[in-house]
């Protein structure tokens, strides 16, 4: 590694004009090569590339980028530190507010957040600073030198908090409470911590060692992790409240939606959750060395247009599919997936079929899916979400052949805890009702945040909720007060 940490020669004086240039690309695996493996697609910036990109930041007086980040990282400061070659300081800056930078740098929808409002992007003339890539660089830099420092913890307070669910929301709450000296026990239903980060988002986008590292940090801070505990089944929330001073529910949006069309229960049709869980968490790509099997479709259809759909489609390619068709009811502009992922999927050969959705699946005599009957749509008036509503074009229907399909049309809130504990109020649709800014629920001592409150959202929003909840839990542990809920979090 080059000696990039020396700040000498920083071109502070002469004004850089690099901001006018395009942002630095990240070197990445060749598409033809990478569809044959599960290794991460981008290699990340080199120190040189990072410093060059950091130089593009014009260090605004009013840095809008900060407002665009749900956890308000001091972006100009950490970017300046990268530019100066003081990568350690950059990591410290980021970690003041974001405990999972290696993860956010990879999976945040930056183009909708920090980078969207970067003043450079605002000018319309220039490209925004690649904030996410720089964040990722800093975090990887720290990890590569093998000295990730766990945050220091305050003296023990004697208070105990139970955190339910080890996704980004739960992990963040745990770190922030441990910092404040509280004893934290994280309970996770699966055999591995990380939530969607381990069972959903594939290795080629978020290597599992990175998640593992963050989980290790928790252990170093004295947080106890209990896997294989399904709260509401293995132990009721009420029992937790007897043993713990507060409970945080971060159980996510793990309930897969199906379309409810004929043939959907045929063999070879998966929810994205099942497909990705088999491949990622259970390592079915490694069958039969690993025991869990999965269908290796040759002609695959993936239904949906979000990150989950992109992940499923790209996974199917890596599992050996000849053709992967992505069926989406609207057009490219309405796709909720991160632009980078759409771009990657396209490079890898995923075939996008816009304005298309299956009406029914057809099976062979062994009840395996062998085709789909599809409908074409056109865009009509905007719906409640502001996106133009797809309207079926009468008579424009067609058949496709396939031997596997993945339904990636969305997930609902995990109903396990609210079902078992009806005094934790939910909204229609099943999301837990929680107060904005504090994550307090209708039940005293119980807080909730992340996807279980917001519906399927993002990693950084789940973390943001975790931070707020940790603060509010800390307050509650001090005062014991539980006033009427104020303004509620809405989806």
């Amino acid at each position, binding site marked *: 590694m080059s000696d990039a940490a020396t700040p000498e020669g920083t071109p502070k004086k002469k004004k850089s004009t690099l901001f006018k240039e395009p942002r630095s690309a990240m070197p990445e695996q060749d598409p033809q090569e990478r569809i044959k493996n599960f290794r991460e697609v981008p290699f990340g910036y080199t120190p040189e590339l990072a410093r060059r990109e950091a130089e593009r930041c014009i260090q605004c007086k009013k840095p809008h980028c900060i407002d665009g980040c749900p956890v308000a990282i001091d972006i100009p400061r950490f970017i300046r530190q990268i530019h100066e070659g003081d990568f350690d300081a950059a990591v410290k800056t980021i970690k003041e507010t974001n405990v999972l930078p290696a993860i956010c740098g990879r999976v945040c929808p930056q183009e909708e957040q920090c980078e969207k409002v970067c003043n450079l992007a605002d000018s319309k003339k220039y490209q925004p600073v690649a904030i996410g890539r720089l964040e990722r660089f800093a975090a990887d830099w720290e990890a590569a030198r093998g000295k990730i420092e766990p945050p220091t913890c305050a003296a023990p307070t004697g208070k105990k908090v139970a955190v339910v669910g080890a996704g980004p929301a739960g992990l963040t709450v745990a770190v922030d409470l441990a910092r404040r000296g509280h004893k934290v026990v994280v309970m996770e*239903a*699966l*055999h591995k911590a990380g939530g969607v980060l381990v*069972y959903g988002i594939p290795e080629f986008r978020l290597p599992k060692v990175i998640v593992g590292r963050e989980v290790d940090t928790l252990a170093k801070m004295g947080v106890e992790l209990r*896997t*294989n*505990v*399904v709260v509401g*089944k*293995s*132990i*009721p929330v009420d029992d937790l409240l007897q043993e713990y001073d507060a409970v945080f529910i971060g159980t996510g949006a*793990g*309930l*897969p939606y*199906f379309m*409810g069309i004929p043939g*959907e*229960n045929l*063999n*070879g049709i*998966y*929810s994205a*959750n*099942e497909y990705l*869980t*088999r491949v990622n968490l*259970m*390592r079915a790509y*490694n*069958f*039969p*060395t*690993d*025991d*869990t*099997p999965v*269908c290796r479709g040759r002609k695959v259809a993936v239904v949906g247009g979000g990150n989950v759909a992109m992940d499923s489609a790209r996974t199917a390619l890596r599992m050996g599919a000849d053709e992967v068709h992505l069926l989406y009811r609207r057009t490219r502009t309405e796709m909720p997936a991160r632009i980078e992922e759409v771009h990657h999927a396209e490079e890898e050969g995923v075939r996008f079929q816009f304005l298309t959705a299956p009406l029914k699946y057809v099976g062979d005599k*062994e*009840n*395996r899916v062998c085709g789909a009957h599809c409908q074409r749509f056109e865009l009509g008036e905007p719906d409640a979400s502001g996106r133009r509503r797809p309207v079926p074009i009468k008579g424009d229907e067609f058949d496709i052949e396939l031997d596997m399909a993945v339904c990636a049309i969305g997930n609902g809130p*995990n*109903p*396990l805890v609210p079902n078992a504990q009806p005094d934790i109020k939910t909204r229609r649709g099943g999301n837990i009702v929680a107060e904005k800014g504090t994550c307090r629920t209708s039940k005293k001592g119980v807080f909730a945040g992340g996807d279980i409150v917001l519906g399927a959202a993002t990693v950084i929003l789940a973390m943001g909720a975790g931070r707020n909840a940790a603060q509010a839990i800390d307050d509650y542990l001090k005062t014991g007060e539980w006033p009427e809920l104020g303004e509620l979090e809405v989806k």
Partner: protein
Amino acid sequence: MPMMNELLEKETLAPKVTRYVVRAPDVARFRQAGQFVIVRIAEDGERIPLTIADADREQGTVTLVVQEVGKTTAAMTRLEVGKPILDVVGPLGAPTHIEKLDYVLGVGGGIGIAPLHPICQAFRAAGTHVEAILGARNKDLLILEDWMRRACDQVHVCTDDGSYGEKGFVTHVLERLIGERKPDLVVAIGPLIMMKMVAKVTQPHGLKTMVSLNPVMVDGTGMCGGCRVSVGGKTRFVCVDGPEFDAHQVDYDELLSRQRFYLEQEKQAYQRYVEAVGHGPEECRIRGGQQS
């Protein structure tokens, strides 16, 4: 602190059927009749669901009765007593709805007798008169007769070949018994074919009948949807909505085909395993009595 998930006892009940007693205090404390656990025995292992056949709250133990049908269930038989099982999670699934009824008739076939046991126990504890029909292919394969005799007021045994009890299928005994006295509820657990036949027998009599389904599962918490079945034309997730459903509403053929989806891969995994641990080739017969 005692070792979590320690395997405390292991006993062969019949050819390819083993009883395991595992230390799992929380599962033992909260489990109710009809619930199951998910077990994983190795880092590269599959997650498999197994019914809690019995539990001891005081001792903090649960009993599993497992038939060897493939790689994981075969590998389980080699687990060492005194060592922990890697993952045991539960209790999962919706508990059986237990209430005091006049008369409940259980029908258990093969390994299905194990999951039937806690249900009979619970109904009896609620003050219900409980009888059970136990069926097996032959005398050697009949399991848990003594348990069932303790859990029920009366037990009727039949074997396909007549080597023990009545000769014939459980459905024959069932026809006869319901002709004598109509139960308020029939609970049937066993191979899918058996459950389907039981449903056929009870439907014309208008007898409320429950079956316990066993699709392929992954998480067991409602997250993957892999365990879905059609019940009354609606898609249900067995791990959270079940495992028990109205026997007259279940699409058995769909479930059967879904259970068999990974057959080729399962055979391959089993074969590999058998080669690695060095059983004779005659042991390669996959899925022993599962569908019998």
